[in-house]
Each structure stands twice: as structure tokens, then as C-alpha cells.
């Protein structure tokens, strides 16, 4: 299993830089992937990111596979104007709660900040399959499937 690198390591820094470059290049796209647009805001040619950095690819998969409870999401608070970061409750009927006061003026930047927050929050060996959990017996395996 590929670990989630500590933020201070060169591996993490490389991924952070690559992730940011990709997200910045996606500004203006009605969609988003951790890939680099050759022309910013234009998906005609996309390279790098998850297609070329295996470690970044696997770390992002791990982050994306987390169960709903406590998972970070983006909330658009004013259409086309403002976005904020929130956390899912994991309980039906309990809405997500904002976790920071930061208000974004575009929908792509929170993607990068959430990546940084998860690097801080998630243990290096989070979700390792070799770590037995009692919850495995009832699909509580911290790796969601649809």
C-alpha cells in the first residue's frame, strides 16, 4: 500500500506542487480533474497529474475512498460567486457543517485546500488493507464502493 506522505517530505511537496498546478490550470473548466491543461481552462490537451504521478494518483484514490462521515466537501454558498469547505456528518438528516471561515471566489481552489487538509489530517498508513479492523466483517472497511 502506498502511504500518505507527511507534508514535510519531498514526496509530499512534489505532489502538492503538481496538484496545485493541475487545479490552477482547470480554472474556467466546468468540471475538474487533477490533470494539467496545456492551455489553462481548456481540456483539449491534458497531461501530468494522476496520469503520470503514480504516488499522487494512489494517494488521491485513498482520500477519495473515505467513508462519508467526516469527509470534506465543497459548498457553493452563492451561485458562481462563493464557495466554502464543509464536512459531512455521515448521519441522515444532519447537514454538513462548515469547517473553515475561508470564502473562495472560484470553485477549483477549495479542491487544492482540501488536498492539503487531508495530508494534515490523515495518518500515513490510513486505510492500509493489512491493518485488520473488526468492521471489515460488515463492510465498514474505510474504502467505500458504490
Amino acid at each position: 500500500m502506498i502511504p500518505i506522505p507527511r507534508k514535510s517530505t519531498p514526496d509530499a511537496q512534489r505532489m502538492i506542487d503538481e496538484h496545485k498546478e493541475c487545479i490552477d490550470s482547470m480554472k474556467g473548466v466546468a468540471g475538474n480533474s487533477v490533470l494539467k491543461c496545456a492551455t489553462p481552462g481548456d481540456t483539449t490537451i491534458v497531461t501530468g497529474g494522476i496520469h503520470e504521478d503514480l504516488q499522487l494518483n494512489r494517494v488521491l484514490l485513498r482520500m477519495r475512498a473515505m467513508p462519508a462521515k467526516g469527509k470534506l466537501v465543497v459548498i457553493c454558498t452563492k451561485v458562481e460567486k462563493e464557495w466554502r469547505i464543509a464536512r459531512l456528518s455521515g448521519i441522515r438528516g444532519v447537514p454538513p457543517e462548515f469547517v473553515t471561515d475561508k470564502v473562495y471566489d472560484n470553485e477549483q481552489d477549495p479542491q487544492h485546500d482540501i488536498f492539503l487538509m487531508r495530508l494534515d489530517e490523515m495518518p500515513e498508513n490510513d486505510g492500509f488493507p493489512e491493518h485488520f479492523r473488526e468492521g471489515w466483517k460488515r463492510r465498514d472497511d474505510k474504502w467505500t464502493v458504490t
Partner: protein
Amino acid sequence: MSWMKITGYADKFGVHPGDTIKFFVNCDGPSEYQAEIVKMIHGDTNPRGPGFMEEPIAASCNATYKGVKQEIYSGSYGFVADKPQFQLESVTLQCWIWPTTPKTHPKYWKHGAQGLVTKWCDGKGYGLFLNEDGCVEFRVNDQVITTAAPVRDHAWHFIAASFNAATGEATLYHEPQVVYALDPEIPPVIKKLSGKPAYVPGTPTVIAGFCGSITGAPEAKASVPPGVLIKGHYNGKIDSPRICNRALSRLEIETMKMGAQPGLSERRNSGPSGKLSEAIVASWDFGDGINTLIGKDTGPYLFNATIVNCPTRAMTGYNWEGQIFDWKNAPQQYGAIHFHDDDIDDARWSTSFEWTVPHGTSSKFYAAKLTTKDGDEDYIPFWVVPHVGEETAKIAFMVPTISYMAYANEHLANNAGGAELLVYRVPIMQQQNMFLSEHREYGGSIYDTHTDGSGLCLSSRLRPILSIRPKYDHFLAQAPWQYPADLHMIYWLEKMGYNYDVITDEDVTYDGLARLENYNVIITGSHPEHNSGPQLDAIHNYMQRGGRFMYMGADGWYWVHSYHPAYDGKGRGIVTEMRRCESGIRTWRADPGEYYHQGTGELGGMWRFRGRYLHTIAGTGMSSEGFDISTYYSRTPESNDARVAWAFEGITYDEKLGNFGLVGGGAAGTELDIVDTMLGSPPHTLVVATSAGRHTEGYLLVMEDYGFNQQGLDGTQHPRVRSDIAYHETPNGGASFAFSSIAFCGALPWNNGDNNISKLVGNVLNRFMADGPLPAPPVEAIVHRGRADYDQPMNKARK
């Protein structure tokens, strides 16, 4: 933060000129709101497109109205009005249960005791319950006995309780059917109680809930029965509930499992003896009348229960043998109803205002725009649809309303951890999602699971559907999806000056070919995924008779839907049903034996597994999906074939087609269809452009296209992960053009409609809308073709 103080719905999706449409509005806080009818043109606020567009319509209902709060009372149950026969001194209750949430989180939206079979209100009466700890509980007035044994979820249990008023003895039985080696025994609990049951006048007998209160509050009129608020909604299955008028022995209870056996004679219906039968007050058989809103009582008083909020029926009962899978062939094994605390079939709100649509009103997309002085806003979309025979255009846009209902009030970004894996980025939620996340009473979509985790297979349009809204980006696309995405096409039709009518899935389902045959061309929405059989028949018959068809999206014709016939009295297409059976991309999976629709009794699942491949409808069918970003198309050599080259007039061969757009940044994206002559594409189909080789790792081949999980199925690798723009002729001068990507229409508004996708669609529409049959294809195109053996030996010899 408070989200959406104003919400609403209408009694109709499609309204004919001359008819009246009623609007129901909840205005929670503001003292008044303004209502205005608007024509909808473009719903996408993306600054890289033409922006939001609506046109005010002078309508008699345009006015300021008093703000009134309206509540939705969701959660399904059965009830029988207060009857003296239920006002018992001694009683026995029994039923089978298969609970799904016997114990809930303290913050769960309906945390607390759940009613099973009750005639109980405010500490008076009797009833069987699951208490907060997930244990079975028997209440006589405010006295309680419990086994203190938590009920195992997702398993059958037999539950019974009796109370003898003469002796004060109450007995509670909880008998799990599956008993594992280390399960403690659960002996019957016997306790002396005092007094006799008393009753709050008007308390109904309730199955899967209890009478919470009886109130004259105006908003409570929306409850059933009006003013009676049912609480303690139960999640799970209940089978064969019985009520008897004395304390039965355990043996008598056992015999009573057989239920009332009316008309006992020497030749039939052995069961409870005549003497024992005298004890029966009610004996419900939910296997009888599965396609109705009635819970049949086979007891002497015919106390049929009214079933409210459309719980799931045609569910396997405690006695299902696993031999018969269609409830119609063994209804006695389908005596379970699965009740959910978030079922909703009709919000039942009071009318806020109405509009009689004047004759001569153009057939278009409309909405009632609701605003308050504080900046609150909601739109209630509807469509003005001409009467059959009064069409006003050569072009009809077929609004995919069944698909809108399937996606109605979808909660995936909030509930499903896997949503982020699916879209390959962090989901973005909007005010609609935030409102729904705390207002579960608005119900979910057929993509969701119920609050108990079971699949949601019924969706009603008589409730505010906040996903059918302009200015709404869906998390799947980070862009418009369904309704607002279809407005991309509407904008383009308006911008290019075409005259068009709009018709809905409902109209085609109920009117058949008559609804289509007077148009030269039918244009679909961007994602017509969910379809009724009559609708697909009508489309087939239309194209066979020379009709022209423009399939503007992808992942169409995928799931079997049927409108529930029990709601026909309330209008067309009120509740749609769909079961996610053994294959197809599914957010939940139906359980064994539960594949047949409760409404029509037809087999649910994918049309593919009913022998109706997706590709047979318009020539292409779903092959992959991914939601991060979109890409573009290139023409193929087949685009130069004389049969279709006219579509590319004004477009050079090497042009990138659609490397722009308001959905994912390209015309080929989100869900993609391809030609496959082995799956029903007509063998003469031409692939005129394809996006092969350009999709990301986030795109994956659909599971029904392979039998074994293996690597190499993503967009960077597998050639079936692509979109094919395809053309084929149908008999009598008809034809189909399939654009095969949900993102496709998002490219149309780019550069205010001046782009090569717009050019291509314009060329196709201009040819397809012309009167009379299309020009005949060249004679050399008429050759024998196979499916797998596509290029027949005789064709090769001819070359």
C-alpha cells in the same frame, strides 16, 4: 445558515393550453412572496456561456401572495380509522418483522421508538413497538413491557403480545427465526399490568407507526388522515399483522399465523377454528392488492388499511421459498410491505395560486418564479404541451421527465462516500443539496438509498423537486445535469430561431404514437436514461414510419420504468417505479426475489435484460462513464460517406469537434454511448465521429459489458471508453442521429452558438425537419450486412 425559505411544486408537469395548473408553495419565514410566470431559455449561470435567460410572461396569476409555511409529512404507514371494534379491553397483537434500523443514532432525523402495530396515542391504548434501544416493547396505556433483547436488523422475527384485562397479565413474545449458536434465548416476558386500555378519541389503528397527535393546525391538513400526525415511523418489513379481541394462548397465536380463513366449509379454508376465529378483529394480508394503496383485511370487518406514502411492496415475505421470483405467481409469499420513514407519495399541500393557460400559449419550457424581498428564490418548472392534433411545429423536444423524476432530490454527494471516487474530485453541493440534507421529508431520488439504507425505487412528482431547477449545478458534472442541461439545447433552438413544441415522457407514455407522428423530428434531452415500455414502443413505431430522431445525449433507454397505476386518478405519471436488478451501473441493488414492479408487475432492471438493447433505440448505447472532464471528437472516414456527408457541410475533416463546452469543457463527456452491432445497433449504422483515446482514467467501461473484473478498463486504455456520433436510416425516409454524450448539448451555447457542434446539429436538424421522406440513400448502400460478421463475403467480392 438557513437554506431555501421558499419551495414549491405544481400539480402537473405538462399542461395543455386552456387547462389550469395549480401551484403549491411553502414560504417559511417571509411574510409574502411574488409569483411570476417565466419562459425558460437558459438555466446555466456559467460565465463562459451566454448566462441565465428567462422571459417574463404576462399571466393572470402574476401577483404577490401571503407567505404560508407548508409541511411534508413523509414516512409510510397503513391505518384504519378509529372503530369501536379496535377499542378493546383484552387484546392480542402479532406480526412478522424484518427491521432495518431497530436502533438509530441519537442525532438520526427520526430517532426514537418505532410503531409496529398500534392503537395508541399519548399514553392511551395498546401497541407493539421497537423502543429506542432496539428492543421489542408492548404498551398498554403508559405501561410497558419489553424483552430487553435487541432485535437483529435485516432478519425475520415473529412478534406477539397479549393482554388479559381480567387478570392484568400481559405477555410479550419475540421469536427470532434465524438463531445462531451463540445467541441468548429470548423467553416470553410476562408481567402484571393494571387497568384497562383507554383511548384518545379519533386514534386510528396504525401499522408501521403510531398516532403522535391530533391537531387542528392548518399545515396538518397535509397529513393522512388530515390533522392526525403519525409518529414513530418504522423502517423495515412487516408481514401478516393480526389483532384479536382477547388474550390468546401461544398455541392460538400459532394457529392465528394462518390468518382469517373466511368462508370455512367442509371443503375449504381450514385454519383457525370457528371458535378461535371469533377473536379476530383484523387480519391483514399484504400479498393481496400489491399494486394498490390498500392493505387487505381478510377478517370479518373488512378493515382494509389505507396505505400512505407508497411504501415498497412486492417484497419477499417471511415465508418466501426462493423458488418463485415474480410476486404475481406466488402473492402469498409476498405478504411483506417494506415501510420507510422517508417514503413520500404526495406532499398534499394547499393550493397557493393557479394559472389557466390561455389558448394560443406557445408550447415551451416555463416556470413559476417565486421570489421574496429578502432575496429568496425558487422556480417551479412546467411545460405547456399542445393537445394531440394541435401541434404547432415540425420539431418536438421530448422532455425526459421520467429521468427527472428518477434523479429527483438526489442526495448522493451528502450520503455516499463513493461519490468522490465516482466524480474524481471533491463534490460541490449547492443550496438545494444543503436544504435537502436536513429536510429528508422531501424524499430522495431513485439513485439514493432510503434513510434505512434500502434501495429507493419509487419517486413522486407531487413534491418540490429541487434538482429540477435552473441555476443548479449537479455534483456529478460540476455543471448542469438533466433539466438545466436540457436548457442548453433549448437556448440553442431559441437562438437559432427554430419553432418547436415540447412534449414530455408522460405524454408519449400515455398517448403513444399519436403524440409523435405529426412531427417531422423528435429531439431528446441530454440524458433520457429512464423510460417506460409504451414510450419506447412509440419511439420505435415513429421511426419505422419515417420519423426522424435526434438523440442529443447518452446513457438513454437504460432502465425499465412504469408509472404506478394506483395514482392514475390523481393525474398522469404521478409516481414512477424502477428496480435496480442484477446488472447495470447501480447505486444500490435490488434484493433477490424483488425484481418485479409492484405497480405493473413487469420485470424491472435494464431494458437490455428485457431483450431491448439500448442501441436498438437510436443506434448507440451506453458504454462508459466518468465525470471529471470532457474531451472532443474527430471525424472518421465514414463521415465522408455520401449517406451522411451533408451533416458536415461547413466543417473541415480535421477540425476538432467540440473541444469546448459548459459540461466538463468538451462535447464528449460524463456518460458515453457507442455503436455496437452485437448489441442492437443497426448494421448499416455509420460512425461519423468518435472521441476514442481521449478520456481520462476517471472513465470506466460499464459493468454489463464484461463478465470478469480485470485491469485495463479505463479511458486511457480501453477502446470502448469513447463516444460515437452515429447515423442510420430507418424505413420510409426516417433516420436517427445519435450524438452519444451527456456533455454534448453543453457545447451548443459556446460562443453564443457559433461553433462546429452547433453547425453539425444545425445541418442535421435542417434536413430532419423538412417535410416528406428523407432523400433515398445511394443504391450501392443497399447490401447485406451481418452483425458480428459485419462485412459479408459477397460484399468483399463485389469490391
